[in-house]
């Protein structure tokens, strides 16, 4: 599904990613953990197509195509979805309008016709149940005045409507209360399937109790420095990141 090979990238000449490699297979869920400022969001945005990063080396192959060569909207239409760590507010544009424009753009790209208003509304309402969101949010301006938790739910709603092949969740759990965490996690789990891969960025192993990952990676200093299974997350929870750095120093890498 996604193959990141020796990716190097910088912002304003400052190197952030320093040779990052990661393979995500079809249907797999990968958790990315790592200290603040280690480059997790940077990775997510480079994959999603945000401007302002200079890729200085390496490559990213998504479903056999050079992902970094594709324009941002093209990537989205091809099924790359980023649930933002900080969702953006768009005053004046209703949530439902954005959803419809997005879905129709994606459908058009897939050669499917636009959904009519009735079918669209039916679809959206059904997906809203997944994240237990109230219908009133459809008619409010995109993320404007939403609480932190409501914004995160809204991201997952968009993902549920757009049905991407690769979902990148950047700290979707932060800012969620305990019940909301469960609800959102259930929503994400409902979207798991053999055709959909997920990259879940989180600081807390708690989320991984709900969204059980196939693999866990530690991103530090711009590289994946350790990979393991679920138990790695539990270990990180217990011991923090320091021991990994010690380990790295010991092996001299």
């Amino acid at each position, binding site marked *: 599904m996604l193959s990141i090979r020796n990716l190097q990238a910088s912002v304003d000449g400052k190197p952030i990613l320093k040779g990052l490699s990661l393979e995500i297979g079809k249907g797999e869920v990968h958790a990315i953990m790592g200290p603040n400022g280690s480059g997790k969001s940077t990775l997510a945005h480079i994959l999603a197509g945000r401007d302002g990063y200079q890729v200085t080396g390496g490559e990213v192959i998504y479903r056999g195509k050079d992902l970094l060569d594709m324009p941002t*909207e093209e990537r989205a239409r091809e099924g790359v979805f980023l649930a933002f760590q900080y969702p953006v*507010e768009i005053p004046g544009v209703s949530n439902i309008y954005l959803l419809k424009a997005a879905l129709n753009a994606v459908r058009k790209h897939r050669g499917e016709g636009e959904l009519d208003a009735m079918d669209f509304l039916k679809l959206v309402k059904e997906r809203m149940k997944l994240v237990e969101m109230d219908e009133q949010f459809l008619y409010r301006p995109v993320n404007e005045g939403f609480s932190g938790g409501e914004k995160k739910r809204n991201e997952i709603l968009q993902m549920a409507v757009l049905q991407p092949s690769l979902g990148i969740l950047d700290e979707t759990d932060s800012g969620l209360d305990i019940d909301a965490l469960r609800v959102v996690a259930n929503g994400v789990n409902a979207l798991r399937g053999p055709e959909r891969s997920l990259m879940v960025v989180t600081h807390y192993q708690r989320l991984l109790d709900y969204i059980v990952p196939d693999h866990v990676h530690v991103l530090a200093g711009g590289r994946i420095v350790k990979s393991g299974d679920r138990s790695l997350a539990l270990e990180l929870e217990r011991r923090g990141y320091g021991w990994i750095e010690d380990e790295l120093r010991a092996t001299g890498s």
Partner: protein
Amino acid sequence: MASGTQNLDELIGKEYEHGFVTELEADTVPPGLDEDVIRAISAKKGEPEFMLEWRLKAYRHWTTMREPAWAHVHYPPVDFQAISYYSAPKAKGEGPKSLDEVDPKLLETYNKLGIPLKEQEMLAGVAVDAVFDSVSVATTFKDKLGALGIIFCSFSEAVRNHPELVRKYLGSVVPYTDNFYASLNSAVFSDGSFVYVPKGVRCPMELSTYFRINAQNTGQFERTLIVADEGAYVSYLEGCTAPQRDENQLHAAVVELVALKDAQIKYSTVQNWYPGDEEGRGGIYNFVTKRGACRGENAKISWTQVETGSAITWKYPSVLLEGDNAVGEFYSVALTNNLQQADTGTKMIHIGRNTRSTIISKGISAGRGQNAYRGLVKVLKGAEDARNYTQCDSLLIGHRCGAHTFPYIEVKNPSAKVEHEATTSKISDDQLYYCMQRGISAEDAVSMIVNGFCKEVFKELPMEFAVEAQKLLGISLEGSVG
């Protein structure tokens, strides 16, 4: 990165869609202006003596005036002696009695513009008084309106057939001494529309006029007069577009509205004149005086406008709230792109008691566009309990454009309540990125955000016009993101 949320200023600018010139033999008066030219215009139109006298008085007054320089716009001086003040499609014998008699070339022009008269007549139920250059060539639905006593005709026809109404109301809202452009218009106005809705009659359809500047180098001086008698209602739509050309073209129209007791006039404009190329060459200069008088209790006048065209726009639709409980409204979207300059706004003059006014102004600037809102709310001494609410929002797209707000408030009665709110926002790169990450192209994202910004104004437009306005904004903004 291959994507492009960054360079908002990179403008591609779609070539003006309506840029073509119809080849028609025009009956044109040589350039220049003096009393003889005015006599010639008046004679060509077969006007009664009072009309000529009024024109001459206006002309004599105009010669004592100077061009205003205070608007927040910049342009090279206009040479008023280089303009030809009259141009009419050549009449073959009598004027056309129906659309079939209209010059096919003219109809073709309208078809290119996407306003097929016939289709409109049949499908939309809109009566169209089409102004081609300076003379009306086709008026439809006259019979249907006539049965209700509604007069909807070209201004010249009104002067000939209803001189008493013209004489009574012409200049009663915008006197010929009003301002430089209004005086010039009063002296040389070519044609325009006239509407009279009699007492208690509700006009059953939207009345609509399409303006089009055609003959090269011909200034356009439209004159529109709409009178709603006591308890009457009328909704009037004005829309226009012009062919591409190289010289700047002057347009100085005057629109006068008179709403008597309990009457209501709704005047909507979608203005799409050629704005000039990316360097601002060849655009239309649009200096317009639009004013309505609520001349009786409970009278109501609403101006709604969507301005996307012209190189320079200078325009302040205003309402004189004379009668008690009169209501004035102004809803405006003004967009400037490339080198366009717009200086628009409104004046609400509260004269009667308990008069109310609402101003919603949305300015959008892209490219190097400059957009100024200039509004005056004036509450006179006798205007007990007057209320005004003004909301003035600016949206900037890119880094080289500007928005300016000049609100003036003059209150002479302490019971007045005047509220003013203003905001300025920008379409951010993050917003565009967010939309693009959802599969929406940058242009669609801009258009979506802009339409959201204008929602409050669009909902005041008649349905078909609202759709057209949205399209127009989309076209006007094409290429405003890189």
